[in-house]
């Protein structure tokens, strides 16, 4: 038993869990096993989970301390200076810029990169300040949505910890000095065909960059270009058409959240689940080792150890009459058979896809099955690769490391990559770098790699520089700068590569424009501005840009399925655990580690913030006597790392999942020291999974700040009808049943006059069947509404400031991992018509608007917190301390000028983005018309990949939101309190396969509300 000084470990009594679940009537929802087990240790843990003392006194994060002091002085200023405002200056332009109208934002089309692939975005700019990112509806990989990381890009631009100066061995140098150094280095290399030159990049889809590289490799044929994508390349992924697929089998593919096409896939997949009664629903099977958003919302989910997935795929293939040997040994043969049958029944309208982290063999099997089912060309397309030169990243990096060790590398140019941190441990990359005479690094931060390089060139943020990139389907986007580089010594990859060419000092703008002048040919002058405006280069397909695929290209297009390489997933050596590596869902391979928005964003399933953990199935943990917050030593292939344990329902037995991207040492003030570095035990031959892991308790414990572990939960959730979920058959039979789960007081049963709202009455509908829990809406809300980051300690105290949260409830039996499901419920302010919060505010700081908004007036609020106490949904957030950053200049540039920046001591909450409503109203009235349906889009709505959120005027029966609320599965949360929420939900409707009734029965509890 490991009991730390302050935090006791929590033992899960699975017996207790079992007993409770046996006793439970109806569906049981629960959030934490400890709660379910009701162990006394848990109650104890609840008490001492966060040792309470005046922690602000010894707050580890100096910045926060400084800020709170600032806050106090401001507060005191408020005391004395309550009468006069200080004089302000007006500083008009000297020459007015074209287009820019002070007070009206402009939107520019560009793209964000995910593993090098483009996702189209529109960037909102206020007088030249990019403040907010929206998806580009015209872009195939965005369709108007963005992911969480995309929202945070604008914060990345303003990150005060970005590297700001060009340096040689840490001393400031001029760009010209750098060029000189490169010139002399090239002078040496040129005669020797560049044999000593190595260029390391991440995955590259940029045609311009590809062309530049091609040019360089042309001049220096012996030079080598290596690629390393720590988060896993997506080169093997085909293009799927989920809108065409009735039955989908995902082999560990988290397609709704992960990958360059996730936004489009999520949209297409959920589009088939929006009108369950009226239109045929699709059905999703997921096989995966660790719970992903996709798996948690699937109709059927089978947790398998990484080593078993290929077997399962073979079993399916076998059941489909594939020639491959029948895999009777597979643990889930029956399951496989049922799936195969279902796939067969929908031949041509089914889809099998393998995840990024699966070995080529599984991809090959998926491709075989699709071919066999005649899905190819229907639901899935195997096209030419989009990446400039798809390679097997780990292998490429290993080759480079070998060359360096052997002293064959004289000049190493690293573009944007951070191998010193991300490289698998077995390559000892950092050590190998010492052997290189001249090391050059281009990066956004002075990171672990920069520290080891002679030259560090600060990279211009993609929102500051000209470039281009291609989407998963090959569509090209010109990336245009929104703002001149904040730090003038910043350069783009194009400019650094140019330094290796005959024309060293070219501007990124010219490089990109010249490339496209060639590509677009005659009518360039017409197509170029059009491409910039649209965010896509219309009618352009890759011609010469990419260099031909090399031998290192593994699962390339159409290549015959290579036999499973033993090295990739070694068979489970009995006894040991299997280890699964995954990039963090938000900070990825660590590149976003310094972005507080993402660090503080609860992970979709674990709801952990600010830390990664060793995720273990409850039963596995119990067998080993492990519990949440136990720190274990992970021993894997002779390397070790210490990690806190987090038990996760739905995790495959005997597996441990660790996320990459944490344990950074030079990420910046936010990212440093968060979590542990999983790549310390990662090996290049098995980058994503392997067996033979030992987890030994150290006796230490470490508190993990999870927004819903410390908001613990138990079976109460079920009896309160918070989540309502039925099967499609049940829904077809009695659609009314969903509404009738609680008793709603009739509108006229009141002593009060019913208020009417005019001209509009704003309302929102959230479709639980579409929500995949990706949390993009939460970051969008943070970005739009100037919501502060509070830090681990405050999150641990329960003081996170997110106006919108995504609640996650588990259902199913923790004993049978295949029955575990998560139900995601985004919770903004409900904007109750009978708002309990308003009545109790002594100073009328929260009152109703004439259009039914529950206004929160920050400047009137004195902070009694009564409103929050009286809010049954607990959606109000309070500035307990000065959480807002009032001091960092760059962060001020990001703020949305249309939303008040709240200071210490005031309550705040979701306003339905009232600033957007007012903007639309004024625009409409200036044009002499009323607001159109869909003209006002809340931040959460516009970012949502699955369009789960719809906002509009419920006075207008024709509006989208009204039509949504007319559906039978529309229900209001806690309606029995007669709060009359304006935000209502569409119940979940699942489409299980009757064949798999066995597991369906285990989920049985699901089938009664």
């Amino acid at each position, binding site marked *: 038993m490991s009991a730390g000084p302050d935090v006791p470990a929590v033992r899960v009594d699975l017996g207790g869990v079992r007993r409770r679940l046996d006793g439970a009537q109806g569906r049981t929802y629960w959030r934490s096993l400890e709660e379910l087990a009701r162990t006394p240790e848990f109650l104890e843990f609840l008490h001492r989970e966060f040792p309470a003392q005046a922690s602000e006194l010894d707050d580890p994060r100096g910045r926060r301390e400084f800020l709170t002091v600032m806050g106090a002085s401001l507060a005191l200023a408020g005391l004395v200076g309550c009468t006069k405002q200080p*004089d302000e200056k*007006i500083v*008009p*332009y000297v020459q007015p810029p074209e287009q820019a109208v002070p007070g009206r934002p402009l939107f520019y089309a560009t793209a964000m990169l995910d593993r090098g692939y483009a996702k189209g975005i529109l960037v909102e700019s206020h007088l030249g300040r990019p403040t907010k990112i929206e998806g580009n509806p015209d872009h195939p990989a965005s369709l108007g949505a963005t992911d969480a990381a995309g929202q945070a890009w604008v914060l990345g631009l303003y990150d005060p910890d970005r590297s700001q100066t060009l340096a040689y061995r840490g001393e400031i140098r001029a760009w010209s000095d750098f060029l000189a150094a490169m010139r002399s280095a090239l002078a040496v290399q040129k005669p020797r065909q560049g044999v000593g030159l190595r260029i390391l990049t991440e995955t590259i889809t940029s045609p311009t960059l590809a062309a530049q590289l091609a040019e360089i490799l042309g001049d220096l044929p012996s030079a080598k270009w290596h690629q390393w994508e720590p988060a896993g390349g997506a080169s093997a992924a085909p293009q799927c058409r989920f809108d065409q697929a009735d039955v989908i089998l995902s082999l560990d593919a988290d397609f709704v959240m992960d990958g360059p096409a996730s936004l489009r896939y999520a949209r297409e997949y959920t589009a088939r689940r929006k009108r369950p009664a009226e239109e045929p629903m699709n059905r999703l099977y997921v096989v995966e080792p660790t719970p992903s958003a996709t798996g948690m919302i699937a109709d059927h989910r089978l947790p398998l150890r990484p080593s078993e997935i290929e077997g399962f795929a073979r079993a399916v293939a076998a059941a489909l009459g594939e020639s491959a040997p029948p895999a009777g040994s597979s643990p889930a043969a029956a399951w496989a058979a049922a799936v195969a049958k279902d796939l067969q029944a929908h031949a041509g309208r089914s889809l099998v896809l393998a995840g990024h982290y699966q070995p080529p063999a599984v991809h090959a099997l998926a491709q075989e099955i699709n071919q066999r089912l005649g899905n190819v060309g229907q639901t899935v397309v195997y096209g030419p690769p989009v990446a400039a030169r798809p390679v097997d990243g780990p292998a490429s990096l290993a080759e480079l490391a070998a060359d360096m060790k052997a002293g064959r590398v004289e000049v190493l140019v690293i573009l944007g990559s951070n191998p010193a941190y991300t490289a698998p441990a077995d390559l000892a990359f950092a050590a190998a770098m010492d052997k290189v005479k001249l090391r050059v690094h281009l990066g956004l931060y002075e990171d672990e790699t920069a520290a080891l390089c002679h030259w560090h060139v600060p990279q211009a943020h993609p929102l500051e520089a000209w470039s281009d990139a291609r989407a998963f389907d090959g569509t090209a986007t010109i990336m245009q700068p929104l703002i001149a580089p904040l730090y003038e010594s910043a350069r783009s990859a194009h400019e650094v590569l140019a330094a290796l060419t005959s024309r060293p000092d070219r501007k990124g703008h010219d490089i990109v424009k010249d490339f496209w002048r060639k590509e677009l040919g005659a009518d360039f002058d017409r197509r170029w501005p059009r491409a910039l405006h649209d965010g896509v280069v219309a009618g352009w397909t890759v011609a010469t840009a990419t260099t031909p695929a090399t031998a290192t290209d593994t699962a390339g297009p159409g290549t015959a399925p290579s036999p499973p390489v033993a090295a990739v997933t070694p068979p489970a050596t009995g006894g040991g655990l299997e280890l699964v590596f995954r990039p963090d869902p938000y900070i990825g391979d660590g590149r976003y580690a310094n972005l507080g928005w993402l660090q503080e964003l609860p992970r979709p399933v674990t709801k952990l913030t600010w830390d990664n953990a060793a995720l273990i199935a409850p039963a596995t943990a119990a067998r080993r006597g492990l519990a949440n917050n136990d720190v274990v030593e992970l021993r894997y292939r002779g390397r070790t790392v210490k990690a806190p344990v987090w038990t996760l329902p739905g995790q495959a037995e005997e597996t441990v999942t660790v996320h990459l991207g944490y344990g950074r040492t030079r990420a910046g003030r936010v990212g440093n020291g968060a979590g542990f570095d999983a790549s310390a035990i990662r090996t290049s031959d098995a980058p994503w999974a392997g067996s033979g892991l030992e987890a030994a308790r150290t006796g230490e414990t470490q508190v993990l700040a999870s927004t819903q572990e410390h908001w613990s939960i138990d079976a109460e959730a079920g009896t309160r009808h918070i989540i309502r979920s039925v099967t499609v058959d049940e829904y077809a039979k009695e659609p009314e049943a969903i509404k009738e789960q609680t008793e709603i007081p009739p509108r006229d049963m009141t002593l009060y006059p019913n208020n009417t709202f005019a001209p509009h009455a704003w309302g929102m509908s959230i479709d639980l069947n579409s929500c995949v829990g990706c949390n993009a809406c939460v970051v969008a809300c943070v970005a739009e509404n100037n919501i502060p980051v509070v830090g681990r300690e405050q999150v641990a105290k329960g003081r996170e400031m997110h106006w919108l949260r995504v609640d996650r409830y588990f259902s199913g039996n923790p004993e049978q991992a295949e029955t575990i499901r998560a139900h995601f419920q985004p919770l903004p302010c409900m904007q109750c018509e009978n708002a309990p919060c308003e009545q109790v505010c002594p100073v009328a700081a929260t009152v109703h*608007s004439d259009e039914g908004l529950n206004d929160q007036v920050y*400047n009137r609020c004195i902070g009694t917190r009564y409103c929050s106490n009286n809010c049954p949904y607990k959606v109000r957030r309070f500035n307990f301390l000065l959480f807002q950053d009032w001091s960092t200049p760059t962060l001020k540039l990001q703020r949305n000028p*249309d939303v*008040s920046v709240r200071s210490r001591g005031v309550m705040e909450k979701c306003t339905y983005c009232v600033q957007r409503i007012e903007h639309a109203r004024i625009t409409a009235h200036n044009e002499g018309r009323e607001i159109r349906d869909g003209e006002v889009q809340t931040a959460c709505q516009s970012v949502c990949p699955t369009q789960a959120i719809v906002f509009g005027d419920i006075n207008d029966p024709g509006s989208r939101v009204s039509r949504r609320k007319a559906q039978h599965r529309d229900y209001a949360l806690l309606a029995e309190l007669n709060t009359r929420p304006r935000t209502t939900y569409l119940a979940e409707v699942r489409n299980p396969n009757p064949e798999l009734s066995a597991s369906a029965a285990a989920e049985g509890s699901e089938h009664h509300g």
Partner: protein
Amino acid sequence: MPQTFHRSTNTLSKLSIFGALFLVVGSLFAIAEINRSGYVTQAGIAREQPVPFSHQHHVGGMGLDCRYCHATVETSATAGVPPTKTCMNCHSQIWSQSPTLEPVRASFRTGVSIEWTRVHDLPDFAYFNHSAHVNKGVGCTTCHGPVDRMPLMWQYASLQMEWCLDCHRRPEKYVRPKEEVFSVSWQPPPDQLEQGRALVRAYGIQTRTSCSTCHR
């Protein structure tokens, strides 16, 4: 037993009780008055500017239209303070040597903006939109006063919330025909209230006193 107090203390002590009451009430009243005075609101106080720009001369004298300089008043939240370029449109010819205009020319030469002192300064948590008002028949002079008689600009109204509310509650007291919005000579007709009501109906003006109208 000797007297502890002198005779006079009787009157004094009696006075002190009522005196205290008057003192309290009086000071409260004084505070209320001070808060509304120009000392706090800055209303009616002409502000020093780097260049003594005279609305009286440009508007009253030469009859420049407001929109010549405040170009975005009909389309944006902010009316827009003109760029130096706008000044130079004329002053590259007229008064092109005048020493008082040197700062303008300097700004144009060097590209460094002129730093004007803000005269109308709403708190940051109040979101005012010029276009919304101008397009609904609220004239410039209604809030900014007789600018054509202001040699140096000063704040005309108190800009306090009660002042905003006055018009937001009963716009008919102030609205004027749209074509008169930019006129500095317009005076409310004797039957302003009737005309006002007609205009309120015609322009679809809402009396919006919900908090989120201005506070977001």
